[in-house]
């Protein structure tokens, strides 16, 4: 029987603030799972700490709510131990780009086949609205006593530099686009990043839903708002690398696109490169049986608990007498 969206919901009360961008992200994720017809027990949703961190509790799938900034290492451990699990990692902007920035960068080097969704709202919500690493210099959101003294991190450019092989952005309240982007990320062979611009109705009074949709700048001719977000795909932009020669030009194009912010914010796939080997493939090159017999599936003892690992060759190498 086909899986429906209700199959991916849990009966728990959702305590995000009314109007939170997280609702859009949660819905898009669940819709993507429906489209992919992925059995709940085949998916594992990891998260860090912050508002986004509760996401797994509202998804009927394996859910691992980890530590602040540490969702990636937990997820990588599980994925490498059992590569059959479809691992989707959620992180916040403070979580993934502040306290967890080291993991963000180093995960790019590995190109592990998993999906990483960053909920980017520019503030630390659960601790009452401090500036996050993506908030731009000089911005003073509602709870800040003074304007922000740090420049904002550009997650798209950082991911490109770190070696992510799928780099995309979407918007929490364009659920259809976000769902499609998440599906592309899951389908990508390698490390896939989806940065989701997410209004925080409680603490970010600058990058609001109205701001993203351009309510403040109506077209004088039509009287309609001119949204700040636009879709890369609709402009003819194509970030997919199809041959080794395209790698540098496409990366440079993505870097250039990543600089757009403010009046025009690009959505969609900035860069995708499946020519790079995944970490799982690299392991399999060394350990031929890895994919069929990964750590979590290996038999380690017989029925009586006798170990079946044969270390006699190693012991022989160390032998001095007898």
């Amino acid at each position, binding site marked *: 029987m086909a899986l429906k969206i209700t199959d991916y919901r849990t009966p728990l009360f959702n305590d995000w603030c009314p109007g939170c961008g997280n609702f859009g992200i949660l819905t898009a994720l669940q819709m993507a799972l429906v489209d992919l017809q992925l059995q709940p027990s085949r998916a594992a949703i990891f998260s860090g700490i912050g508002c986004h961190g509760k996401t797994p509790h509202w998804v009927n799938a394996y859910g691992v709510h*980890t530590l602040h900034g540490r969702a990636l290492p937990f997820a990588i451990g599980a994925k*490498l131990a059992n590569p059959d699990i479809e691992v989707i990692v959620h992180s916040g902007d403070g979580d993934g780009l502040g306290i967890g920035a080291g993991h963000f960068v180093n995960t790019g080097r590995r190109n592990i086949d998993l999906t990483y969704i960053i909920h980017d709202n520019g503030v630390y919500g659960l601790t009452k609205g401090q500036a996050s690493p993506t908030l731009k210099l000089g911005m003073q959101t509602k709870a800040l006593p003074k304007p922000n003294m740090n420049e904002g991190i550009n997650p798209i450019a950082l991911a490109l530099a770190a070696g992510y092989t799928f780099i995309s952005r979407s918007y929490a309240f364009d659920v259809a686009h976000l769902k499609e982007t998440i599906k592309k990320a899951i389908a990508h062979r390698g490390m896939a990043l989806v940065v989701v611009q997410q209004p925080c109705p409680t603490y970010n009074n600058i990058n609001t839903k109205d701001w993203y949709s351009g309510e403040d700048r109506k077209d004088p001719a039509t009287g309609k708002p001119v949204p700040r977000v636009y879709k890369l795909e609709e402009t003819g932009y194509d970030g997919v690398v199809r041959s080794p020669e395209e790698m540098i030009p496409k990366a440079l194009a993505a870097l250039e696109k990543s600089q757009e912010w403010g009046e025009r914010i690009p959505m969609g796939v900035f860069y995708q490169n499946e020519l790079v080997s995944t970490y799982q493939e690299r392991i399999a090159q060394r350990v031929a049986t*890895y994919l069929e017999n990964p750590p*979590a599936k290996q038999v380690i003892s017989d029925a009586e608990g006798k170990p079946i690992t044969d270390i006699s060759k190693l012991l022989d190498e160390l032998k001095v007498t007898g």
Partner: protein
Amino acid sequence: MSRDEFIWMAGGPQGSGVDSSANIFARACGFGGLHVYGQREYHSNIKGLHSYFHIRVSPREIGAIASRVDMLCAFDADSVVRHIWEVNAGGGVVCDSEVQVKKLSEIPTLSASFREEFQKTLEKKGIKPETVGDLLNEAKKNGVKVYAVPYLELLKLLAKEIGEEKLSKLTIMTNIMALGISFGIINYDKKYVVTAIEKIFGKKAKIISMNVLAFNLAYDYAAQHYRDFGFNLAPVQTDEKRIFLQGTQAVALGKLAGGCRFQSYYPITPAGDESEYLEENQIFELERSELKHQSGSIIVMQTEDEIAAVNMASGAALAGARAATSTSGPGFSLMVEGLGWAGINEVPTVISFYQRGGPSTGLPTRHGQCDLRFALHASHGEFPRIILCSGDVEECFYDAARAFNYAERYQTPVIHLTDKAIANSTKSCKMFDPALIKIERGQMLSEADVKDKDYKRFRFTESGISPRIPLGTPGVVFWNTGDEHNEYGHITENPEVRTRMMEKRMKKLELADGEIPPQERVNFFGDEDAPVTIVSWGSPKGAILEAMERLRQQNYKINFLQIRMPHPLPKEYVSKILGKARKKIAVEGNYTAQMAGIIKEETCIPMDYFVLKWNGRPMTSDELYDAFLLILQDKAPVRQVLMYGT
């Protein structure tokens, strides 16, 4: 020098091959049926600073170094100066004849503090040597024999023999020649050394033949010129199967046999060797006949930091693999938050923790036992954990495997605590027997067990243990969170659930305490009724046993309680033993006698004497013998601080 054992020390600048020389020396002795114990000491430096290797060989099993040297094989002037006073009367120094002219004031690697100490020693002795040669002459007056070897001449001979014109290409051969000289002086059977050289250099036939040639040349030179040493090292016939390895290898082998299939680590001394050995041997054969065609494997991940290391191990453990990480004090400091997560989520993560001198970076390459309290209390909040302490290389093997049983049976993190002295000690051990290892995975459910059931990962049970399933098991899901949670694993702040969930987790510690028998948690040596009891843990074991044996021969009655599981501590057993002792002596490699404190806290029994050492060097059997003797003669202060070490 005792008549049947021999202590050889190789000293030289780091990166000059001290290690490989010592390795060949030790193995050669091992091949000759002798028991071997070695300790490696080195600076936190890549090239140039002093390092040395103590190798002690004996017909009897030994587990410690002693505070003396029978033969110092010095690769440079620095090593002569540092170790000259450690050489026994009747012992020898082997060095390059050219170092004799070196002025003592012109050895740049000797630190200011060393020079100051050294000057004081010279003043005390009333001598004023200017050169290394002068110093050696002073040693000669004390009965030390000096073998100043013309290595350059020997190298020329070697060059001629193999037709190599550039001498600089052969200087690397000085190491093997020093071995040849050493073995030539003590007249040890060449064939064992040749076997050792072959073993160390493996398949590199050309290198083997060149090393054997250089060795023979030096050996013959010594046999001809240095005939006055008066001690011959004799091989011993034995049928016992023995292996020779270092502590980190024993841990790695224990992990493999124990079914560890995922290890994550961040490079750190001295833990790094273990992960490297695992990675080198990551594919292995399986014993069970129907799996013969398949090989087993372990994934070894070098992570970006220790935070990632511990959490990746927990992720792999959640998925059902036996998983571990390996580190030292500074790395464990970073793992603390992850430890707490594993605790509240009941994840069987194993942490191999090699202590070294702290706090902070402390003594990065030196020994210490200062992290017992840290291992016990690390992380905010309260949760059960099990701590295992190995006392020697052999225990490391079996404990490393057992750690996973405890972790999975009680679904909680296990810390396997060892120390630098064990990590870097090389020892000939009775062949490990993997058949003594039993794998117990605790309450693990299968797909069939949970099919169509309302599965609760943290179900309240009588024992506190909720049967677990690996993440990814079809037909069911669960949730984890570092927040307090309900039986499903969803966040809760409900006071009643919180109370019960804490009780459920903490109960597992009581269960472990009740189920794990004392023989897995302590070792006891000697007569229960002896009036004096030594209490210790970790690497002092070998030195204590040897000191005890010497005291026993002098009719002192003394026993030794080695704690292998300080948490949960087998209270009743410890109380029973300590209750009988009139004098209780704590022996520990730290300042505050941490184990003694834990025992007092758990049993209300205080120690009477403390023998402590924190200078970054392992305890020697001699200094423990001296300390114990003072206590037995009622001449000791409550607290004795040991100082031996260079």
